[in-house]
């Protein structure tokens, strides 16, 4: 592993100013991603996963705005230097070169991610020619090769198909092809398997893993499916209400979770092995309204280990709880030792 991360998000803040008030969708998120690593970003709906990723690409829709922090991307020619994506003008040529060129996106909804009135081939070759000065003929060849690489049968025929003529799985493959067609170093996969059936899901995950290893890509994998996280990633970032709760190597997160929120999440996964007749535990309460975020640690109203007059005052600072393993929780603030709160 390189000494320096390929992408480093530091204290990122992205707010939406609405008529009703300001929604702090992402409120101080930091994480690093190294070359060839799959980083899972997990959390409930509305926790700011997608907003974080859109911020990285600088395609946050209005009224969303990045109000603070840095998104550092390692320069291709000099690994010691970084570009701060936050400082680039939103629609300038530099960021557009990076979008789709160095950082590509597999969008959330495969059904609607393609235009229904343009062929798949047209939309993929467009992505090629935005980043490489190739002729239409060469672009066609690259497109067919990439469709092959994502395991699409009869790519010449699919080239002239429309997205709605393809099955869910094929459509997802076409989207992956469009994302990797310019050989990006970072791939953002925003819930790439939520809209497809379980069998196809497994194939798509296998394909992504294969492509990642072949091309030594970094993948930022966004999902709320902990099973997928366990299967795909090496490093996990757990988010709740716009903040990172805990981040660490995948084994530590699953076998030695520190933050009460991570534990609660893991406890609420149904298991095929356990055949107890006990009700599946859930996290008490519900996610607070975004206008009405709790002070202090955002999880404290639902936390079973809440420390009164501590957790509800200021947000907890970053605390190292293991190798590469960090939790944002007052339970570990005083002692860095692994302490079982129970």
């Amino acid at each position: 592993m390189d000494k320096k991360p390929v992408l480093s998000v530091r204290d990122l803040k992205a707010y939406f100013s609405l008529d009703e008030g300001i929604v702090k969708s992402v409120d101080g998120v930091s994480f690093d991603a190294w070359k060839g690593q799959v980083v899972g970003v997990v959390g409930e709906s509305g926790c700011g996963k997608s907003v974080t990723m859109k911020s990285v690409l600088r395609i946050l829709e209005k009224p969303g705005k990045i109000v603070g922090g840095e998104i550092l991307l390692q320069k291709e020619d000099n690994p010691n230097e970084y570009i701060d994506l936050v400082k680039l003008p939103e629609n300038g040529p530099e960021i557009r070169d990076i979008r789709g060129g160095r950082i590509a996106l597999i969008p959330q909804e495969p059904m609607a991610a393609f235009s229904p009135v343009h062929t798949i081939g047209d939309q993929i070759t467009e992505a090629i020619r935005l980043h490489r000065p190739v002729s239409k003929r060469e672009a066609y060849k690259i497109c067919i090769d990439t469709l092959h690489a994502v395991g699409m049968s009869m790519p010449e025929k699919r080239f002239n198909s429309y997205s709605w003529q393809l099955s869910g799985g094929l459509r997802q493959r076409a989207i992956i092809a469009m994302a990797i067609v310019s050989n990006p170093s970072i791939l953002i996969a925003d819930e790439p398997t939520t809209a497809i059936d379980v069998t196809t899901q497994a194939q798509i995950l296998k394909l992504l893993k294969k492509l990642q290893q072949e091309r030594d890509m970094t993948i930022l994998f966004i999902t709320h499916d902990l099973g997928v996280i366990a299967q795909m990633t090496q490093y996990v970032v757990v988010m709740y209400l716009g903040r990172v709760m805990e981040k660490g190597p995948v084994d530590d997160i699953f076998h030695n979770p520190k933050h009460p929120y991570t534990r609660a999440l893991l406890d609420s996964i149904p298991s095929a092995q356990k055949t107890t007749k006990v009700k599946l535990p859930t996290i008490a309460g519900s996610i607070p309204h975004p206008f009405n975020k709790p002070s202090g640690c955002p999880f404290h109203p639902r936390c079973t280990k809440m420390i009164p007059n501590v957790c509800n005052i200021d947000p907890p600072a970053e605390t190292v709880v293991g190798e590469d393993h960090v939790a944002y929780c007052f339970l570990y603030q005083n002692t860095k030792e692994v302490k079982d709160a129970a």
Partner: protein
Amino acid sequence: MASYIAKRILVIPFLLFVFSILIFVLIQAPPGDFMTTYSAILAGSGSSLDAEQLDAMRVSYGLDQPLHIQYVRWIEKLLRGDMGLSLLYMLPNKQLIAERLGPTVALALFSFILSWLIAIPSGIYSATHKNSFGDYFFMVLNYIGVAIPNFFLALLLMWFFYVKFGWNLVGLFSPEFEAAPWSWAKFLDMLKHLWLPGIILALGGSARLTRVMRANLLDEMGKPYMVTGRAKGMSEWSLVMKYPVRLAINPLVSTIGNYIPQLFSGSLIVASVMNLQNIGPLLLQALSMQDMYLSGSILLVYCLLAILGTILSDLLLAWVDPRIRLE
């Protein structure tokens, strides 16, 4: 696709048959007939016809026959391509309509194309600059366009151009071409007179189209393929022009069919105000004089145009939208 077109074309005669019955019944619905109106006009101008003469004329025109016989006679002639004689002009209806069809279609096409040329760019601007000064500016302009009746606009503009520039824009031709046979010079002269009614008709139409275009485009610009396009690295302008604009135009294409008959009937009032010798005023006159064969023929031509317009817009829609073409 071929069978789809064939089906649409084969259904035309049947539709025209149904329409012809409806038209005939509606035209005959008001009390009296051409002879009643004719004698009333004669009486107004001092001279008169006695009842015997009137009845003799009724018999010779076949107006004494019951409704269904009159209809059968009319349709029988129509099938042989004869639209009958105008009682008012004592000229074949075919000739009367053919003379005026050219300017009518020219005016309709001109204002149709103009309204699209105004509506699409201003719709795109309004949607991409939502709630900006320009958006509100176009919005106000559009509301004015919708709210002002076009005959009033015609009067205003005719007055304006006459007072300001001394242009006399009344009529379809300059006096020297009025009776002249068709020639290139006459055609150019017609264009000189056609632009103002064209603009007047286009303004009303484009106002609605702009609003529809803006709404469609705003809808499309929220679709997930926009995120895909941005993530590819497309510039905002080329992204908007390639995807959402293309998709937002599709619903507009389907309105062409409704728009074509609307243009003809819309031009009726403007044409009457501006004294344009196209089909509109002819129909108005034929209806008020109860010249039933003339008005029947014109209405049937309108129906045919409406049907052809619908088929045309369906074909265009199939052409621009693969989801319809490939189904």
